[in-house]
């Protein structure tokens, strides 16, 4: 698994080491260049100084004052200095005793003065300079006022090759390189340690964030991650996580409430069934009445209705139903839906007002439309105030057909209307309406969504509930 801490540490340490190596190399090259430049400059100065030891005397000959006292470093092969004076035609005029093998003293193309590397012997590198000069006349050889007569032939320049052993320079460079390597290595080690500690400390809020998150489980989803003290990089993540936790919590609560509601809806019929059976078994000689069997049948039907409705709701909400596209006569569906409820409506002394067009054909799934119509009409008939009015209207508009069911009710508030389509929501906390599962309107809403119909519940007046379902493209 990838570790941010490890990756950050490795990358920062690698970058630091690469940068320090580059800096060390650059520094070494700069020092080397500076030392060589300094040596070249010193070599040139020395060459210029040596020119003062070469004089031309009145007879035109040259005089070299290369005595051991003047050139102590040029006396043997082990000496550090090497010197050769030659003419432009290559004739060697003088050389230091230290220079025994002039072949190794190969100069570059001629210029006024230039430096180059030479080999002064086995494993003995050196640095040389070529310097052109015209020797001065000896004071005694010049005419009056030390002015050279113009009638004299022009002077030919002489070339001096001066070389020095580079061992001291190499030693210095070796010391510099050793220090640089040691410094870079120490820097790399310290950098690794410092980076590891810094990254570890820098990632502490992330670890704490992880600990806080791991402490939240299914039973503590109502908790949220603390935002105080979080670095600004983590704060948006914590906020998004808290929002996600809130959504999860709401979903879990919905799920738990739904499960509890289902269990609760089943508790009473199961209790009825069990109590009925146990009493009958405990006193088997007692009279078994038709009422007992009717109770058992009614309980079975009630539980069956609940299960069927719940399955329908689950399938609709999970989009596991593929609705058909059929032409459905909505008005005929409504009339046939009301037929079995006519007796209940009469018993409850309801006044029904129908406003149906001659034809209202919608394109949808027949079973789904029948379920929507049955649930809405049943609810209106059963929940309307006794003696109240129910209005069933079908409106045809441009490309749409709307079913509007309005009924009188004395118990609903505007706040209740927002809960109407929630599963198991009932105005009556006692859930005494045993003919209803409490899932009917939730199923209607799920079916409407599945078939792209629009459903809306409103309260046009204090004692009225209006539910409208609109099918588009009719």
């Amino acid at each position: 698994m990838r570790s941010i801490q490890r990756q950050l540490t490795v990358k920062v340490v690698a970058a630091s080491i690469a940068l320090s190596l580059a800096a060390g190399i650059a520094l070494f090259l700069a020092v080397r260049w500076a030392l060589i430049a300094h040596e070249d400059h010193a070599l040139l100065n020395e060459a210029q100084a040596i020119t003062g030891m070469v004089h031309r005397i009145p007879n035109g000959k040259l005089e070299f004052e290369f005595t051991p006292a003047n050139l102590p470093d040029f006396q043997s092969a082990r000496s550090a200095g090497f010197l050769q004076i030659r003419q432009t035609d290559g004739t060697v005029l003088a050389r230091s005793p230290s220079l025994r093998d002039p072949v190794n003293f190969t100069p570059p193309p001629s210029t006024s003065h230039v430096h180059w590397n030479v080999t002064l012997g086995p494993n003995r590198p050196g640095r040389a300079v070529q310097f052109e000069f015209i020797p001065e006349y000896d004071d005694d050889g010049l005419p009056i006022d030390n002015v050279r007569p113009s009638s004299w032939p022009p002077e030919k320049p002489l070339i001096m090759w001066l070389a020095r052993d580079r061992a001291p320079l190499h030693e210095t460079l070796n010391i510099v390189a050793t220090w640089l390597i040691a410094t870079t290595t120490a820097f790399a080690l310290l950098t690794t340690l410092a980076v590891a500690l810094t990254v570890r400390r820098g990632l502490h809020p992330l670890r704490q964030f992880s600990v806080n998150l791991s402490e939240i489980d299914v039973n503590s989803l109502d908790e949220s991650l603390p935002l105080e003290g979080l670095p600004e990089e983590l704060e948006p993540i914590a906020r998004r996580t808290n929002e996600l936790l809130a959504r999860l919590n709401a979903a879990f609560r919905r799920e738990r409430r739904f499960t509890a509601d289902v269990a609760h809806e089943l508790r009473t019929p199961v209790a009825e069934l069990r109590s009925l059976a146990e009493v009958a078994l405990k006193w088997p000689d007692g009279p078994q009445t038709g009422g007992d069997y009717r109770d058992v049948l009614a309980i079975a039907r009630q539980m069956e209705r609940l299960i069927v409705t719940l399955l329908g709701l689950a399938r609709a909400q999970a989009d596991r139903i593929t609705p058909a596209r059929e032409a459905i006569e909505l008005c005929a569906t409504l009339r046939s839906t009301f037929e079995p409820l006519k007796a209940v409506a009469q018993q409850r002394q309801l006044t029904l007002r129908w406003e149906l067009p001659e034809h209202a054909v919608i394109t949808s799934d027949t079973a789904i439309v029948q379920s929507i119509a049955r649930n809405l009409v049943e609810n209106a008939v059963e929940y309307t105030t006794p003696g109240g009015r129910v209005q069933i209207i079908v409106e045809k508009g441009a490309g749409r057909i709307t079913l509007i069911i309005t009924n009188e009710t004395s118990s609903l508030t505007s706040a209740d209307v927002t809960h109407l389509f929630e599963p198991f929501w009932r105005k009556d906390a006692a859930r005494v309406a045993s003919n209803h599962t409490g899932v009917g309107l939730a199923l209607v809403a799920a079916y409407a969504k599945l078939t792209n119909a629009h459903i809306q519940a409103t309260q046009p007046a204090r004692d009225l509930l209006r539910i409208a379902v609109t099918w588009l493209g009719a």
Partner: protein
Amino acid sequence: MRVLLIEDSERLQRSIGAGLRKAGYAVDIAGNGNEGLWHAQGTPYDVIILDLMLPGLDGLSVLSQLREAGKTTHVLILTARDTIDDRVRGLQSGADDYLIKPFAFDELLARVQALLRRAHGVKQPSIIIGSLKIDLSGRTVSRDNVSIDLAPREFALLEYLALRQGSVVSRTQIESHIYDSQAEPSSNVVDAAIYALRKRIDPPGAASFIQTRRGMGYILKPFEPQ
């Protein structure tokens, strides 16, 4: 023993009511909270079985109002609400027991019997009066280890007298605890019931376990041979 069942499910009213009656209890039934409170305040029930989710007045409100009115009748809550919060709230509101639906009828019966014993300060499941042994749990009676068959209402009468053994119990008390609102006892129904019970439990030719206190009522006490 008279029990009030406050339950909105008609099917549970029927089955629990029938079962309790067969077990020898007088049972009154109320289908909503207001009716239940009215019954509970007006009649000296031995035990009240109370549902919580009731139309009208909910069960906890019934219980609170009952306790505020000074009624100490033992109350068993019988509900589908199963959370610990619900149980704690119910017991803290003054209930004596809590049973969750669905339930075993035998357990309901046992809990009702336990509440009855508690109401009369009896901890043993059986009461012995001389040679007479009354098993309150098994609903059986024996004399000198010989079982005596009693009708449910006869057993209820004996149980009521036994729980108050040594105390005089008036005819009115017997009427109100042994007969529910469905029964229409005639003026001498208690005397007739006592007469029938004596015939069942008393040894032939001996003084009766149940003695009459003229103008006051009846008292159940151990048989003392002359």
